């Protein structure tokens, strides 16, 4: 018979997992609305406006539509892979959050119990996230392959090449941060970013790793398939790329994955380079608020970029990945190493 404390701990973890998954499942609902509104205002129009005040119920309407649409699978598709591909894409997108901390600790007032704001503090957190995040690409490749359509196939091939080339740069840019903070745990990385340098510069990694941040951000844009690197679903030449044959809920799983990936990229940027939940200079310490605000800013930045830039061509994308980002990230590691010495 395990003692009561262990039981409480286990119960707590289960509750946390459920809460985090629920948040992640519902997050794309406001995000789609926000993205359309941002698009609308950038493009001098209103965005959704009909369903509910300021179109706020639009995502709900979309959800109903997606649920009741006919779920078509092409006749010659590989039925099993076709069904599983969206799950392959979606599960890793959720699994990543097992290692992502949203804050340090809070005390729940009534039962007076300290609760950590993360599911687990792995000592190899960063490694886990990059590895699990990388699995997501299987969903895209398999989705493209199983559809038995040339457009989808090309989208799948593009995504595999793109993910591999940018994952390397992404990982290498994280190494700089790992070297300066001497830890793979995200919690430690954030803790080390508190305080200031010389009393007036926040001790965030962006200050000592500007190149690392630039590489990380560009590679993250490519990793999450957004303009200017949204080649796997290149509307212009591939119609919708890897998910061209998907409809209804299966399609919405891919959408969900993409939005979650965008959130993950923002969260990682904030944790690795922008001090996590540490408040900027001389501001009151409200960890949750600062964390959400910073993440929100980066999500907005991703949307802003999407509605401003055209997209690269496939070979140009590879050139950037292999000829610019990779050498630059190696140089960054070298410089960081020399600096540490």
């Amino acid at each position, binding site marked *: 018979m395990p003692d009561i404390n262990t039981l409480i701990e286990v119960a707590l973890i289960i509750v946390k997992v459920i809460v985090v998954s629920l948040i992640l499942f519902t997050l794309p609902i406001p995000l789609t609305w926000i993205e359309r509104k941002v*698009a609308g205002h*950038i*493009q*001098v*129009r209103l965005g959704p406006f009909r369903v509910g005040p300021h179109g706020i119920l639009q995502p709900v309407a979309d959800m109903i539509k997606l649920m009741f649409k006919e779920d078509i699978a092409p006749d010659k598709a*590989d039925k*099993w*892979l076709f069904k*599983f591909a969206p*799950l*392959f894409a979606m*599960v890793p997108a959720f699994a990543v959050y097992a290692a992502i901390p949203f804050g340090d600790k809070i005390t729940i007032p009534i039962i007076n119990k300290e609760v950590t704001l993360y599911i687990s503090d792995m000592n190899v957190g960063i490694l886990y996230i990059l590895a699990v995040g990388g*699995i997501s690409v*299987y969903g895209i490749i*398999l989705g493209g392959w199983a559809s038995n359509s*040339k*457009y989808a196939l*090309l989208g799948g091939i593009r995504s595999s090449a793109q993910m591999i080339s940018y994952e390397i740069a992404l990982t290498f840019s994280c190494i700089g941060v790992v070297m300066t903070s001497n830890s793979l745990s995200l919690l430690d990385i954030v803790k080390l970013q508190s305080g200031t340098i010389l009393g007036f510069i926040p001790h965030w990694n962006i200050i000592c790793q500007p190149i690392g941040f630039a590489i990380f951000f560009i590679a993250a844009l490519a990793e999450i398939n957004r*303009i*200017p690197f*949204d080649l796997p679903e*290149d*509307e*212009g*030449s*591939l*119609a919708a790329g890897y998910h061209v044959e998907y409809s209804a809920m299966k399609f919405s799983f891919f959408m969900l994955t993409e939005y979650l990936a965008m959130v993950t990229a923002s969260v990682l940027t904030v944790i690795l380079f922008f001090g996590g939940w540490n408040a900027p200079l001389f501001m009151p310490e409200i960890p949750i608020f600062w964390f959400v605000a910073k993440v929100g800013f980066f999500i907005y930045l991703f949307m802003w970029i999407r*509605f*401003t*830039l*055209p*997209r*690269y*061509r*496939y*070979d*140009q994308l590879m050139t950037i990945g292999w000829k610019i980002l990779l050498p630059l990230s190696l140089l960054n590691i070298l410089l960081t190493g020399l600096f540490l010495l």
Partner: protein
Amino acid sequence: MLLTSGILLLTLHMANNQEIATKEITLNMGPQHPSTHGVLHMFLDMKGEKIIKATPDIGYLHRGTEKIAENLLYHQFVPYTDRLEYWSAMGNNLAYVLAVEKLLGIEVTERAKYIRVLVAELSRITGHLTCIGAWALDLGAMTVLLYAFREREMVLDLFEMICGARVTHNYLRIGGVRYDLQPLFKEKCLEFVDLFPKKLDEYEQLLTGNRIWLKRNKGVGVISAEDAISLGLSGPILRSTGVKWDIRKDEPYLIYDRLDFDIPVGENGDCFDRYVLRMQEMRQAARIIKQALEQLPDGKPCIDMPEVVPPPRKNIETNMESLIHHFKLVSHGFKAPKGEVYASIEAPKGELGFYIVSDGSERPFRVKIKAPSFVNLQAIDPMCKDAYLADVVAVVSSLDPVFGEADK
């Protein structure tokens, strides 16, 4: 668990298809595709993403326009021309009307000539705006499309003011124009012409200096001047190769010889030159409109020739003779002298010409439309050779085909 089962499935799947052979793929692009500008269908033979051969396949929007013309009275065909190049319909009206007038040997009033130039240049702006907007959208810069359509909307409002219609106008008629300009029109149009170059600066800010836009367009879809001429290309595509050929300057019609404007010319014959050219042409069009508005003479919008031009509405109600003329024209049309003519204009897409053969009756014996989109489409294969799949999109956008016209 799920992962393991998935990987297991994949391995099983691979095991089933053991012979792996590489071969070229043929991609059917269109006719339903977001960036084939309507119903262009292309067979793309590709090696990976490299194009070996691009074969355009047209005809999905064929409506037999030329045959229809043979069964209609001369003046009844004008609305059909609107549906040819529907992004800038006024130009089509103009080319047809000029051809019929040449056949009849009539000369329209000065005011009508100015109004015709005015609307033709306005429609050049609408055509080019659509081209640039759709092009940017195809290459991923969605916002430019909506900015371009915002200004296009202003021109459409002007068209609405002129003739009550926004897209298919049926405004020009044989012998003049259908209605005189509204009193407020001049003011509104000048307002637009002054505002428009600023808006063009806005698009250029988003595109012209943009690294990605340059990378996607510079050196893409290159064609030499000799090839362009031997393929019979015209319009911005020909001028982008450095050939200075513009019918408005070289074989002036209407009042273009009296107006002061430049013909922008490119040098590399690539997509980027075609983009810059169109931007500059819009600025020149604004310049032409401004001059035409300032010099606009008074007078009648139509010539006084009751057998060709129907009398004004109020005369029909009060004047017996007008009523007879009107009835005659509507029921029988007019006879054209025997012979054949060709008249062409510089439409936004290139040389738009109408070749009419008359056997002396009220209906044309044969009408042949020389549509610039149709001719320019030939350039797809030479331009796409050894390019990447994504370049095909840029090339098609830069050729700017409109399928109402290409398929007739």
